[in-house]
């Protein structure tokens, strides 16, 4: 997936000279995960900018750049550090077009998620702070194909887009990508697996966990439909409701912590839009409500795994 992201950046910077990169170590070092390796050499220091260690400065500068006609892609070295520029993102990036008629066509991207023994400051899933912020778009792909196509769409979108890259998937998800230019539209979920007994909704690393669980369940005669959200804001209501109308049961799986995770939002949406199609409660499997543990066995217990997902799906299917 990492290579797919790098390709997207490369191709967009080739296509549009307004696209610039900025962030900590993105230039000379090539990025903490080597996502931006080679780009400085290709496009020069005016378009690949190594910044001081200040996320506020990174995002603030990106806002200024967008006002002047550039299309910046700002990197958070670890998405956890996005907390440092919360004010810039929520009060300037998100409200600029609404308040001053000044669009901010920028992308903020970075490695997020856990499962790599990164501890509480390098494993966060902070997407919901920004799903809660009107004016932003939030994208979180699970496959290499989607990562490339969605990042291109994000860069081309005139709205500010937060692009989360699950670091666990960086080197574990690989596929043969089509040559040539392609994009994946923002705001559309996709049905990864068709089923009739229940719907599992997920995104990022948990999408793969859900697919594995679906295989386990299939052996027991339970056919799960698996939906990959891909974009968290705006949520693809239509795809979700259509699936609930079909299977009548829905289970949300996310790596984000339980309270305030997107499962609650989805449950409310489903009640509003498809209550009379529900043959069971909306259930969720999520991480525990704690900071991400550093200790490997604790982190394992913290994260949802195939067993827990399959057990919840089983209970729901049999309800």
């Amino acid at each position, binding site marked *: 997936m990492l290579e797919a992201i790098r390709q997207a950046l490369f191709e967009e910077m080739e296509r549009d000279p307004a696209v610039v990169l900025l962030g900590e170590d993105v230039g000379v070092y090539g990025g903490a995960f080597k996502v931006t390796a080679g780009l400085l050499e290709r496009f020069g220091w005016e378009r690949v900018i190594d910044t001081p260690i200040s996320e506020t400065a990174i995002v603030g500068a990106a806002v200024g750049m967008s006002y002047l006609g550039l299309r910046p892609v700002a990197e958070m070295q670890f998405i956890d550090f996005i907390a440092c520029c919360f004010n810039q993102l929520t009060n300037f990036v998100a409200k600029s077009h609404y308040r001053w008629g000044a669009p901010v066509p920028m992308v903020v991207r970075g490695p997020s998620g856990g499962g790599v023994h990164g501890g509480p400051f390098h494993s966060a899933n902070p997407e919901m702070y920004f799903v809660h912020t009107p004016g932003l778009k939030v994208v979180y792909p699970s496959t290499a194909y989607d990562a490339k196509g969605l990042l291109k769409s994000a860069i081309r979108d005139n709205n500010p887009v937060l692009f989360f890259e699950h670091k666990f998937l960086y080197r574990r998800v690989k596929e043969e990508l089509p040559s040539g230019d392609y994009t994946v539209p923002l705001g559309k979920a996709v049905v990864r697996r068709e089923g009739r007994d229940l719907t599992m909704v997920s995104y990022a690393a948990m999408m793969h966990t859900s697919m594995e669980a679906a295989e386990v369940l299939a052996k027991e005669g339970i056919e799960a439909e698996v939906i990959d959200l891909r974009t968290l804001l705006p949520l693809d209501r239509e795809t979700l409701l259509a699936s609930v109308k079909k299977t*009548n049961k829905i289970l949300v799986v996310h790596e984000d912590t339980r309270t305030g995770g997107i499962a609650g939002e989805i449950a409310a949406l489903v009640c509003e839009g498809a*209550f*009379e*199609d*529900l*043959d*069971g409660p909306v259930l969720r499997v999520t991480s525990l409500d704690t900071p991400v543990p550093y200790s490997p066995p604790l982190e394992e217990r913290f994260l949802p795994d195939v067993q827990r997902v399959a057990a919840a799906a089983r209970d729901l299917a*049999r*309800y």
Partner: protein
Amino acid sequence: MPVDVLMPQMGESIFEGTITKWLKKPGDKVERDEPLFEISTDKVDAEIPAPSAGVLKEIKVAEGQTVPIQTVVAVIDAAGAAAATAPAAAPARTEAPQAAAPPTPPPAPSAAPATAAQASQRVAVAPASAPVAAAGAPAMPRRDGQRIHSSPLVRRLAREHNIDLAELRGTGAGGRISKKDILAAIAAGGSRPAAPPPAPTFAPPAVAPAPAPPAVPAAVPGAPGTVVHVTLENAVPRERIYFGRYEVQPMTVMRQRIAEHMVVSKRVSPHVYSVDEVDMTRIVQLRDRTKNEFEKRFDTKLTFTPFFVRACVEGLRAFPTVNASADGTNVVLHKEINVGIAVALDWGLIVPVIKSADEKNFLGLQRAINDLAERARSKKLKPEEVQEGTFAITNPGVFGGLMGLPVINQPNVAILGLGAIQKRPVVIEDAIAIRSMLYITMSYDHRVVDGAVSHQFLQKVKKALENWSENIL
């Protein structure tokens, strides 16, 4: 090997039960003591555990049906020779809140299913076993029209196809009607009018149970005593009862049971009455002095009842024939001292039992009394809590009367009645003093208890009360 699951007897005067919900369906694995089905009787609602481990083979009595006690309601295919000894934890049920495990009677009764020939069925609950929901757990909806467990989808489909959900048997979790069930019903019959034609596969909606004549528990073969068959008789021809303006009120099932019990008790036990009076001044003063501190410290109300129970326990220890039952020509002397406390309810009367009252301290007695009374009024007593009493106390004085002459609570041989505590002038050492006095009466079964014993018993109780010296704080 097949094991019969029987409708248990929830109380001494309860002779039938209604199945409100099957918690398992045929084909399900059950563990011994795992909750298997729920019943409702006029005294208690209860969850009934499976008598053995195995697979539920067949359900013979559907939800909503009322059957006599001892009726075989289901059959379990028990695995192997005997049921497992250690009851496994029941699977977590997310719907109902789980109450704490109930207190067990000291010798844990065997969990083997009683044969139909036994007069009383023991419903066992293993000590450290699977969670048992409180009797009458409010979270479980009844199937008698109050609430039918389904889902929004099922209700919509039922509405669209004009199907009455009360007719359907549910195969979803906890017996709810699932999408599968409603789709099957639609496929089977299509849209139908709301009035349900009777169909053998559907459980009939349970209405208020029609009064059925109570089942006669079979006589124990070879035992000396027999059971009295009860029907309520009239003393005069019917025409003499109906005249002028009147309103007919059918008896509730509980009322019928009470009526039958009273008739039988009077018929079987020759009632004789002893009366004595007790100077309660000491206790009244003690209670006034310590009431607030007691309630503050122990968070439970301080009443007079534990004093009486204590005093009775002394009497029962001294006179074991008062703590007995009659079985034909045998006198059964109970080693347990289980004191029943009569509780008046809006809809009748019930006698919850304090088990091993002789082994509880004052605070334990008070707590047990308050707890049982409260749960009696909210219909949350467990079946074992209205069984196995060996003596009873009733308090007609609470409603003002000087004294009452109660009917013995079968199969006890005596019952103590307490009058109102009133200040009266009494003679003490040739002087007149104003004291708080109480009349105690004892109704006793003259087959087993003689006057001498009865009066001596009362004297013991009186002395225990008048000379109360225990510190209750």
